[in-house]
């Protein structure tokens, strides 16, 4: 009997159309900058940002560095605001830098390697490596496969062995103590293979970028295929990014 009670309360949980998802207005997604912001305010914002994501001249906010604390928008709501737009992923590092007057993060579909869409457009297996991640992005990546988001419906799943994987999803700033393990894991994956950086800490090193416990040499000779800002990355940011990368969705 107790099983039926659980089932009845559980009902249907999956989100029927992932493309129709909107997050609550308070969600801290893609920021928006006002071009009319005066220089004094820009300078103040530059000083205020604890991770150096904001530049006064030219006025910009780098979502690859931003930890989405929103203190800038709290102090200067006219100059910076955070929208609920979760479509923040891109294959181009420069596209993560938000400038005034833009409301979408560009995705260079033409720049995606030719084989990516044809090889991975129907099924994709990813190996996740946490290299100093704080556990929150890891939990959000787990959540992409849960009963609500059910990313598996598109044939996209996380796998245990790098031998079964088509790419690696890295979280965290990449610690020195994990550098070798990450390298071994990546080498075990067959070509062609993807590199996805999940979270602002993976993209830029975040708060730990300058610390000697960090070793980002893995990225020195390699170009990531997808960069997903967030602290942590929301499951919808991940789903949207991977779908766009594999050509199953277009960024408007």
């Amino acid at each position, binding site marked *: 009997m107790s099983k039926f009670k659980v089932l009845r309360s559980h009902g249907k949980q999956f989100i029927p159309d992932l493309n129709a998802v909107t*997050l609550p207005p308070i*969600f801290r997604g893609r920021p928006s900058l006002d071009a009319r912001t005066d220089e004094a305010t820009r300078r103040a914002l530059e000083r205020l940002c604890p991770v150096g994501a904001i530049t006064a001249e030219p006025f910009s906010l780098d979502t690859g560095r931003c930890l989405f604390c*929103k203190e800038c928008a709290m102090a200067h709501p006219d100059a910076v605001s955070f929208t609920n737009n979760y479509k923040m992923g891109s294959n181009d590092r420069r596209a993560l830098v938000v400038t005034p007057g833009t409301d979408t993060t560009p995705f260079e579909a033409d720049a995606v390697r030719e084989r990516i869409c044809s090889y991975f457009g129907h099924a994709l297996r990813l190996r996740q490596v946490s290299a*100093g991640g704080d556990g*929150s992005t890891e939990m959000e990546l787990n959540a992409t496969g849960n009963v609500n988001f059910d990313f598996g419906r598109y044939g996209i799943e996380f796998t*245990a062995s790098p031998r079964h994987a088509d790419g690696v999803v890295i979280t965290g700033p990449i610690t020195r*103590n994990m550098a070798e393990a990450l390298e071994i894991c990546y080498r075990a994956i067959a070509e062609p293979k993807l590199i996805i950086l999940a979270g602002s800490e993976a993209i830029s090193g975040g708060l730990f970028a300058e610390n000697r416990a960090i070793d980002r040499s893995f990225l020195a000779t390699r170009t990531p295929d997808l960069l997903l800002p967030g602290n942590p990355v929301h499951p919808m940011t991940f789903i949207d990014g991977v779908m766009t990368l594999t050509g199953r969705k277009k960024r408007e």
Partner: protein
Amino acid sequence: MNWFITDNSAPSAELARIPELSYAEFYAQLCAELENPACHLGELFAMREQESRLRIFALLLDDTTSQVKICSYVYPYYCEDELPSIAARHPQAHPFEREISELYGIRFSDSPWDKPLRYPARRAVQGNTIDNYPFYKMEGESLHEVNVGPIHAGIIEPGAFRFICHGEKVLHLEIALGFQHRGVEEEFLRTDNRLRQTLLAESIAGDTAVAHATAFAAAIEKLSDCPPDPHSNLDRERAVALELERMAMHIADTGALCMDIGYQLGQVACEALRTMTINTTQIWCGNRFGKGLIRPFGSHYHIDQEMIRTIRSNVAEIKRRYNEVRENLKDTPSVLARFEQCGEVSLSQMTRIGGVGVAAKASGLCRDVRWSHPWGEYLRIGHRPIVKRQGDIMARLTTRCREVLQSAEYIDDLLSAMTHDERPTPAPRFDTRLAPLSLAFSLVEGWRGEICHCAVTDRQGALACYKVKDPSMHNWLALALAVRGAGISDFPINNKSFNLSYCGHDL
């Protein structure tokens, strides 16, 4: 006995008031106090006080009197004397002594296991690297080793596990950590930007962002000369956030345990309920993990009447449905067959290793700082910890289950007590001056257990040392003990039943 005696709601202490003992005195009085099972070591850490000396502080937590007793000893920086080990008599000191040895090269002559703890970048012996961790070895033709990690099968943080097995039976498990080490404590000192420090606190362990940020905010508030406004709802809001985090993670762990035994109904039901819980946090503050919510002296996310209604109705729904899952788990024989009498840790083991939180309570050891060392709103709540005796996986699961329901009740009570005539929550402050040459600590019961942050300031009022202790520091050894003698195939459910933090330990 020579202690500085304080408690978890008292302001910071001037360093000069904390007794500076010889090591012999320090050792004698700490060992004597630790004989009392109601006392445990909350923190034992070294800091470089001047160029030429280290000062080592101990925080002793007395559960019956709510006292926190502090004392210290000084060790000249270039001294090479070996010290008698406290861990040799009280194993709970072991991780702390390993840390002190690793960072500063102090040798403890009779240390039971003189091994590196986490291979931090600033370790004393740079030649020790994580790739040549000295794993324990056993010889014998019928024994074999199983090596797991640092990367595991799943989306989980890294750590290396080495099992020595006799057939299917685990004789010994050794856990090597440090892969997640990012230099958190160092980063606290490299900046005087309080906002940056707050973000650091939130990233100590992302699944415990609220609890660690609360501990940081409390430590800073204790060091500042202006106390937070006592007439606002700030303490209540922090308690609501902390209990929401506890609910979300306990529900997630219930689901994860179900997943590992292939009980899909429990798994998917808990996944949905966890989503609902963290989405409640998201509606409140815009982040599913509560990042951005806890700030020193105030909050940007004041709870208004509409938010009170939303949170209360969501929490009531989660509580009702989670209780159905709980009832179902309790009367499903295939679930009980896996969880009962598996992974037992006895009360005496838990006491000796200084276990905390859910794992300790499941073994009959009542460790919960909401009860023993209350702070803020918990001074008024009158928390009564849930304690089990069996110490097996089922006991850890039922402790979690009951805590979810208890937290739901606390949230409802706290929100219904919020009235209009309270002053609105003040804005955060990042500019307060800290008292010079002082020590402040804060104890917060996160969902895993006792979190302790210690902040020490220098002559100018800047942070000279920031010490973080995640409950995982105490409890990793409990996992190794739990699987001793168990089948190796039961390791995953044992691991999930503790769900300890890698990054919180590695810092």
